[in-house]
């Protein structure tokens, strides 16, 4: 799969490819670290799917196939950057330091968010598609006004690329030369809608029409995603303005655990993409070039299992919140209807809270 348009530094077999514009700056330890990230996040995803099947989660949005896109992008960020995700950015959340159990609070239906977005500099998930791209641009405008060398990064998919908010975000980012990177994971499917319905041209071409650069990167090649994202972020931080990155990838799993992809896509297509697996190709590189031993890979797998076990325990320990917590943080300042609701809930004995 060598495509002239696609920035690729690693073949699906894990062999390096020369690219005229980008070269990998990562050493073996760093690449091994990315491998570890991807294995852990895949394990997290599989455990979460199991938890949903066992009735412990209301829903889960699998990430399988998109690990390189997210780990490559997530590891290119600086700690002070700020990211704006959808509900599938578990790999980004991992890179930002969000504890895995916090990622599952939304899916356990005990929270509408799950973590402190200011602490991790990773916003709460946007479920209404594309809305977060405008938040990223606004945040970037704040960075500009603060004179800070930071960047905002918005994550969205090929489906959301049709949303008006995303296109408005492109306009604003260009007009204000905002320090923002738009990271579109084109995973080929918006539930059952193929990406060809969302765009008649390669998605990254859209950026040119808005007046800023666009680049398509092999989203299953973690080395390439890292370099492309890093360059875009570096440029944004020093006044270079926005970039659209299209990470060309594939959603191996279902849209969510409520979805049945066998109704709309053929197995052969999935099989083709399984051969482009993002984890296996890095593993092949690590074996060939860095002589990483099986025991090291086994250690990572064991670490992932420990994480998954703890995740399971943490999720099972998340009990039903006291109903009265629904009134917390609805407003930042006292509100009569909040007080009224709280009082009623206590008087009716729905909550054991105090008046």
């Amino acid at each position: 799969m060598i495509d002239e348009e696609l920035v690729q530094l690693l073949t699906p077999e894990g062999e390096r490819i020369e690219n005229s514009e980008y070269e990998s700056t990562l050493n073996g330890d760093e690449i091994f670290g990315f491998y570890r990230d991807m294995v852990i996040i895949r394990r997290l995803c599989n455990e979460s799917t199991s938890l949903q099947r066992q009735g412990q989660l209301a829903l889960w949005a699998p990430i399988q196939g998109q690990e390189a896109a997210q780990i490559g992008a997530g590891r290119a960020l600086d700690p002070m950057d700020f990211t704006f995700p959808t509900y599938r950015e578990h790999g980004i959340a991992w890179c930002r330091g969000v504890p895995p159990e916090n990622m599952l609070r939304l899916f356990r239906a005990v929270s509408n968010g799950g973590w402190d977005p200011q602490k991790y500099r990773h916003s709460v998930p946007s479920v209404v598609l594309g809305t977060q791209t405008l938040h990223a641009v606004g945040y970037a405008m704040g960075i500009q006004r603060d004179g800070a060398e930071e960047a905002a990064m918005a994550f969205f998919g090929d489906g959301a690329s049709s949303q008006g908010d995303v296109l408005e975000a492109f306009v604003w980012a260009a007009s204000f030369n905002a320090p923002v990177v738009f990271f579109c994971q084109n995973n080929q499917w918006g539930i059952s809608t193929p990406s060809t319905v969302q765009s008649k041209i390669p998605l990254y071409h859209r950026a040119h029409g808005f007046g800023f650069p666009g680049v398509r990167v092999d989203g299953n090649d973690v080395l390439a995603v890292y370099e492309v994202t890093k360059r875009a972020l570096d440029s944004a931080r020093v006044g270079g303005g926005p970039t659209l990155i299209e990470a060309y990838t594939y959603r191996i799993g279902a849209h969510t655990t409520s979805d049945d992809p066998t109704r709309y896509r053929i197995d052969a297509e999935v099989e083709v993409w399984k051969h482009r697996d993002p984890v296996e190709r890095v593993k092949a590189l690590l074996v060939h070039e860095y002589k990483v031993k099986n025991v090291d890979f086994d250690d990572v797998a064991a670490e992932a299992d420990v994480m998954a076990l703890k995740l399971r325990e943490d999720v099972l320990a998340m009990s039903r919140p006291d109903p009265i917590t629904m009134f917390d943080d609805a407003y930042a300042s006292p509100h009569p209807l909040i007080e009224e609701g709280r009082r009623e809930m206590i008087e009716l004995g729905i909550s054991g809270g105090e008046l």
Partner: protein
Amino acid sequence: MEKNPKVLLMGEDIGRLGGVFRITDGLQKDFGEDRVIDSPLAESAIVGTAVGLAIRGYRAVCEIQFDGFVYPAFDQIVSQVAKLHKRSDGAYNMAMVIRIPFQGGIGAIEHHSESPEPYFAQTAGLRVISCSTPNDAYWMIQQSIEHDDPIIFCEPKSRYWEKGEVDLETPPSGLFDAVVRREGTDVTLIGYGASMKTALRAAETAAVEGMSIEVIDARSIAPLDIEVMAKSLEKTGRVVVVQESPHTASVGSEIISELTQRCFYSLKAPGLRVSGYHVPYPPTRIEEDYRPTVDRILDAVDRVMGFES
């Protein structure tokens, strides 16, 4: 803006032009293009970027040019601005003001005369207010900018040309307080925004006919200051609400429902609403037959006065 460097203004034509109603006239000259931002023409983006700015610690004052243009921003207001404080477990303050010139009376074309406030009043996480006097306009906008919750600030555009004294000595009323504009004993007449002027005129006319009408400016549409209204109703026993929006699921419906619940045994007549009709806002050559008039208010007053149980 002088007090807090984090306050920004954003909207269409608000800088160089000073806004289509000149409300922000001269501010870009004083505070620069980074703080008084002439935005591209996209309402969802005006509000959506204000969200990002709020996350970064800024306080945006967004101008929506006309009421009928707020709907492209509806999702950002209702799903994002209203809910992000909750979604982030309080980590984000969505401190911002969304200014909307609303209601009719200026003979404009379609989409320039609407009353969208009931949509926002129904949304938890938002606060909705309206001013009716120059003094309130002066104080309430400053109080709104200082407030930590997002505020939908409905400005009665037909009153932009109104002149009046601003009292710089007396501390202003609370931002969410209703105010009695005229005292009376027979009927409580409640309104907000541009309807206040019509309501006060109706009260004057009624006085000539020997009826004493207490006029209350709700000022805060959500939350309602129901205590002030209830206190008045305990005295008068009769209530009429004036508003320009259609009456179904309106602010007036809420006021009357709350008051009926609280003051049932004081009521001498059912509460009435004088509203716009349940039609798309009409061509403005006939808008004065759509908007509540003194005659329609007095008709409602006569009906509550003449009610026999």
